[in-house]
């Protein structure tokens, strides 16, 4: 008898015990929320571990973080739900996930929650069968939403989960606990199988990160049901929105400051020190409120320099629940929209670009982009962030440039929910984004420009140089942790001792007789002298090439090179 089976038997026993004694056959919306809150907590604890098994050993492969942040936004909304009914809570979660979705895994998760909520429609309470059906619907919903569903990913795992849950629910009138146990069991098995379905996972020696994240979440929910895990959740969950509002409202009533900007944000990071943050905020302004723990902190300050407060926040970690209001105007119950890099623009079609790095942002601005979405540390903004940027454009027609393959789905979701006529041009890198933006034709409309820009992004090749966070074999290449690696149009092609060598080797591979210009964007951690040495070497080896060196300030990637 396997462990799983004996576990199953134990649960069946308890199910029989449950149905024998005082019956807890159905559960409330509050229980549902508790389960998902615990799932989120458990996900948060395991986020780093999930991040580390991304196939590509790149520092921004943050599946764990993305899923966690998505769930955090989900729970934020769940705690604001107007009633205790299961379907209202589920709908709230679906809404929160939709807007808070980050990265492809976040978007898929939000699609699952949508299906889950649809299935629970009209149900005030739910039991094992309801839950199983909802899990199945979640799987279908996610599958339908992805354009090219791939086996061996989170989609496969969810499908297996739905199937196993349904079987358990129907066969033995499964209680919620038994259904969830079967689900967890199926998830664990399906995750272990993913390397057999996706060769790239097998070569890398890892299981699918998204699938693993899903398994972790289900396990967390089960542990809650068993009483093993109380949702010792981060501040955002324990401290519902309205008590924060109460605290900050008293600050406003106090009338401490009448000018400047009321700046608020929630930062998710590591080793946060409330006293240090408080000290900094006090330097910047008044009416300071800092609440939280070392992983999550909520900040409120009245300052004339909201940019400084927000920049400080982004240096500590990921920001969410960001709000900046003009205090005077706020007093008149009128608030200005957050300035997300808005530049006055004469183009008939607005453009939104996702960029991380001060230099890169400056470049996009200098090229006349209408709005910028800050990617943040994981370089994956949420649906809401992209949506805010789209809505901040003065034009009715907007094109979105995700500049990262892990932001494309998020951008698509934002575009679907925008009231503007918006379209995504699926740029996969900063150079593609710049090429697309340069191709903007000021005399044409949305559809034509989208086609022009889609064509233009293929005219440039991208090289990205960073450091491997893990030893792995991928794309036929063996990489050791800590080595410099170079990706050519997203494919890992070079591993070398130094970023300098990796860049040069990759360039040698990528150049064609048609290449006439190489632009080197160097990152925030990159030595400027090393960059100049690199350029000198390029000029020497390829005297007919034009080169340009630009400060990009991007995190994680020492160099981003564009070849055109």
């Amino acid at each position: 008898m396997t462990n799983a089976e004996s576990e199953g038997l134990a649960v069946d026993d308890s199910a029989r015990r449950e149905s024998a004694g005082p019956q807890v056959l159905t559960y409330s919306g509050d229980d549902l929320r508790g389960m998902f809150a615990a799932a989120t907590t458990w996900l948060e604890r395991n986020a780093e571990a999930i991040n580390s098994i991304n196939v590509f050993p790149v520092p921004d492969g943050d599946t764990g973080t993305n899923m966690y942040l998505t769930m955090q936004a989900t729970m934020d909304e769940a705690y604001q739900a107007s009633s205790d009914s299961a379907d209202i809570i589920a709908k709230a979660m679906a809404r929160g996930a939709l807007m808070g979705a980050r990265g492809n895994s976040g978007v898929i998760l939000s699609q699952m929650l949508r299906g889950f909520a649809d299935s629970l429609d009209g149900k005030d309470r739910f039991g094992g069968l309801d839950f199983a059906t909802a899990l199945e619907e979640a799987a279908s919903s996610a599958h339908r939403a992805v354009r090219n569903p791939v086996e061996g990913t989170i989609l496969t795992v969810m499908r297996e989960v739905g199937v196993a849950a349904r079987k358990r629910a129907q066969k033995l009138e499964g209680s919620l606990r038994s259904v969830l146990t079967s689900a967890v069991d199926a998830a664990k098995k399906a995750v272990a199988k993913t390397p057999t379905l996706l060769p790239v996972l097998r070569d890398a020696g890892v299981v699918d990160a998204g699938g693993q994240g899903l398994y972790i979440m289900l396990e967390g929910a089960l542990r809650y049901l068993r009483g093993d895990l109380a949702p010792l959740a981060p501040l955002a969950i324990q401290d519902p929105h309205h008590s924060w509002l109460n605290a900050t409202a008293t600050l406003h009533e106090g009338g401490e400051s009448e000018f400047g900007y009321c700046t608020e944000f929630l930062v998710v990071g590591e080793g946060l020190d409330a006293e240090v943050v408080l000290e900094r905020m006090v330097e910047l302004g008044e009416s300071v409120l800092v609440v939280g723990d070392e992983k999550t902190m909520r900040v409120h300050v009245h300052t004339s320099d909201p940019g400084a407060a927000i920049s400080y926040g982004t240096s500590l970690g990921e920001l969410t629940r960001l709000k900046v209001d003009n205090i005077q105007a706020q007093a008149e119950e009128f608030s200005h929209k957050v300035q997300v890099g808005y530049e006055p623009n004469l183009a008939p079609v607005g453009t939104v670009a996702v960029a991380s790095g001060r230099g890169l942002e400056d470049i996009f601005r200098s090229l006349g982009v209408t709005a910028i979405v800050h990617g943040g540390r994981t370089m994956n903004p949420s649906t809401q962030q992209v949506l805010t940027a789209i809505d901040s454009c003065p034009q009715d027609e907007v094109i979105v440039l995700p500049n990262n393959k892990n932001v494309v789905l998020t951008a698509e979701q934002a575009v679907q929910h925008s009231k503007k006529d918006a379209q995504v041009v699926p740029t996969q890198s900063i150079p593609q984004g710049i090429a697309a933006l340069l191709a903007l034709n000021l005399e044409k409309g949305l559809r034509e420009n989208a086609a022009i820009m889609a064509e233009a992004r293929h005219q440039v090749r991208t090289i990205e140089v960073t450091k491997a966070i893990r030893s792995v074999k991928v794309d036929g290449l063996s990489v050791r942790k800590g080595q410099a690696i170079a990706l050519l149009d997203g494919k890992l092609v070079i591993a070398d001792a130094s970023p300098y060598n990796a860049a040069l080797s990759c360039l040698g591979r990528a150049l064609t007789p048609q290449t006439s210009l190489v632009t080197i964007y160097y990152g925030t951690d990159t030595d400027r002298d090393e960059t100049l040495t690199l350029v000198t070497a390029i000029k020497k080896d390829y005297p007919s090439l034009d080169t340009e060196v630009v400060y990009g300030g991007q995190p994680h990637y020492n160099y981003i090179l564009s070849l055109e």
Partner: protein
Amino acid sequence: MTVRVVTDSTADLSPQTVEELQITVVPQIVLFGQESFRDGVDLTTEQFFEKLTKSSIAPSTSQAPVGAFLEVYETLSAETDAIASIHLGAKFSGTVAAATIARDALSTPCRVEVVDSATSSLGLGLAVIAAAKAAKAGAPLEEVVAAARSVADRVHTFVLLDTLEYARRGGRISRLEALLGNLLDIKPILGIRGEIHALGRARTRAGGLKRMFELAMAYPDIAEIGVMYTTTPADADMLADWVRERLPDVPIHIARLGPALGAHGGPGLMGMVIVEGVKGD
């Protein structure tokens, strides 16, 4: 008597064309600081571009003085009773204004019609050529002027700058700059039709030439094409080859851009002109 056609040096007409069609060209003034030259007379185009790259002074061009127009009209009025004086767009220069003052000051019975082409360079040149051909065929002044206006109305001009350096030096870049980018090396493509407006940007010269070519080719009915260069004739030949491949039956003119555009566009400047077909023909 044959109508005589007058234009200014911004028409970028070749000496052969000028002689063949008996066109009179009034030279623009090219200024390098305090030094002033008559375009094509005191300073050839070749010499201009050499001086441009060597000098730290940003050159500028201005219309010929009223007196120069008056002199031309007076001389020509001995041979004809009608003059068509076709010039660079009034939005770009005071040339039309100077010519008009000269016309009003003319004391001979010769009729002078001043035409604002609203365009420049080869676009103007093609309008002038059409007028001169009509004049050579014996058309009266009204028809000669109509021929020029007809072409001028159907002209679209595109230019590709290799650098924004000279435009900046000359103080010509203002709101255009915001659209053109200043952190990355950008090669702008501008359209000239009454005014100058930004049409696109490219990162490489090759990319820019392709973009400009496609912008020009986008017009469905093209009657005539011009290709212009400043310091890179080989690029002009290449563009002309592309045109021949795409539109083998359309007449192509190749011309060298002079100081009027060259002063601000700088060396490497390239251009294209298309004349749309007459509608309803």
